[in-house]
């Protein structure tokens, strides 16, 4: 572990916490533009968080301690997830923890807590949403694992840093398996981040909600943390996608200049990715909840085929 490593680790966490709301706002802005609406400013997400943190947090009478602690746990999980994904540098003190399976586990922990919290209060919408969240989750997780495995088949390791290093250092080569995994990954991220076509982040209809209904009972700082955690999740997913499929520009060990360069590259990549996400959301329509398993099964299957193709044609 070098000092530079510690520095880049700190930089990465700070960047994730700061940039995550910006990324959400950026996606929202693009979506508004694409739909011919006037967009809220880029700083809107920060203002919302600021406002929520200063509000009183109202908690239901029967809420248990779990309900109160869940936002912190979830936020912690997401922050850790963003920290271990090698976005700026592959030389991170936390990189031994950055295992593909551990990462999926982190997301799973967050999901379990948010679902438990939603059921804790005992409202019908919360329970409904918890069920749906688990439905999405139990299909999306294996698909995500398969995507990560496709990438690890190429680098022969499940460590994220090793994967990114291998992929970034290779000569220009085309991996059909990664193309398939890429499509699968985009589908999984749409589902996991509660985006159209699986969920609609801007909906006001409780019956169709998934993610919004989960946090329906929260207010004040708890809600702020959950919103922030959602932004972090999107950020983390975007970073995983970039690291796996567009790993160029990630700094390696002992390269301070590269680290400096990595920040603007990352921001540029995120900006493009966010705009594309908004475009994708605008182009598709929300599907019925019963179609979601199909959607995710397709993602799973594409990832599996990616692995098979990798075995067949060797990369």
């Amino acid at each position, binding site marked *: 572990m070098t000092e530079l490593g510690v520095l880049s680790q700190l930089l990465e966490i700070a960047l994730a916490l700061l940039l995550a709301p910006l990324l959400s706002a950026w996606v929202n802005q693009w979506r508004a533009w694409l739909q011919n609406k006037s967009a809220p400013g880029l700083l809107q997400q920060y203002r919302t968080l600021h406002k929520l943190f200063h509000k009183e947090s109202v908690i239901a009478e029967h809420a248990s301690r779990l309900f109160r602690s869940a936002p912190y746990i979830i936020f912690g999980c997401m922050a850790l997830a963003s920290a271990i994904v090698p976005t700026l540098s592959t030389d991170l003190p936390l990189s031994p923890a950055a295992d593909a399976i551990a990462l999926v586990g982190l997301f799973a922990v967050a999901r379990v807590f948010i679902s438990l919290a939603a059921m804790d209060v005992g409202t019908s919408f919360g329970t409904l949403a918890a069920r749906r969240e688990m439905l999405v989750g139990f299909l999306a997780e294996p698909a995500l694992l398969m995507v990560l495995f496709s990438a690890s088949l190429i680098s022969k390791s499940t460590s994220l840093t090793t994967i990114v290093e291998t992929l970034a250092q290779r000569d220009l*080569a085309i991996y059909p398996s990664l193309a398939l995994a890429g499509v699968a990954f985009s589908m999984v991220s749409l589902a996991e981040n509660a985006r159209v076509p699986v969920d609609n982040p801007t909906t006001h209809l409780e019956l169709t909600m998934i993610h919004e209904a989960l946090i329906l009972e929260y207010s004040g700082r708890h809600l702020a943390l959950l919103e922030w955690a959602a932004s972090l999740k999107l950020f983390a997913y975007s970073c995983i996608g970039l690291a796996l499929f567009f790993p160029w520009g990630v700094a390696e060990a002992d390269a301070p200049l590269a680290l400096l360069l990595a920040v603007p590259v990352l921001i540029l990549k995120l900006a493009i990715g966010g705009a594309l996400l908004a475009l994708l959301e605008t182009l598709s329509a929300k599907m019925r909840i019963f179609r979601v398993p199909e959607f995710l*099964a*397709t993602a799973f299957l594409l990832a599996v*085929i990616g692995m098979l193709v990798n075995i*067949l*044609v060797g990369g």
Partner: protein
Amino acid sequence: MTTITGQLINLLAAILLMLAFAMISQRRILSLIHLFTAQGAILSAATVLVGYATQQPHLYLSAGITVVLKVILIPLLLHRVINRLEVRWDVETLINIPTTMIIGIALVIFAFDLALPISKLSASIARGTLGIALACVLLSFMMMITRSKAVPQVIGFLSMENGLFFAATSATYGMPMIVELGIALDVLVGILILGVFLFNIREQFDSLDISHLEKLKED
């Protein structure tokens, strides 16, 4: 150069497989036709690449035939048929789609397993893709089984032919020209006959649902 071309061919093969899966999971006839068109385009691109990599000019010709036949002519014909018959929306498959997908994976594994030892023997640049071609054939085959409507069955038939064509290209750099011309002719005539049939079936049964076609069976 060759490695990049080879990788590109592999990539196109993977896209073909993806399209085959998209087809079995697609309910709308219009999207099926688009997917079929895309499949034809990818197929001809792959043929051109193989031709380029191996210096086999006759592959350019067969790529040209593919473009004319499968990217322009047949999709146009299909569009006209579904417009005239007003069957742009197709709804249900016989087996639900996740199950179909699982069976699909099994078929892909089966196909890869069959093709793996054989593709090792081939000297072709695109040898790895033989398994993909076989998988495409089997998937289209399954699509024909799981659809109860006439038009998707026809599209399944055509996409199976695409898979076979790809197999010929990837395993052996294409069949002899005369055979390829014959196959193209057969496909064209076949699709014309099927097109006429669709109208006849519609006329006789007031529907394009093949499940109406079950008068003839053993008691």
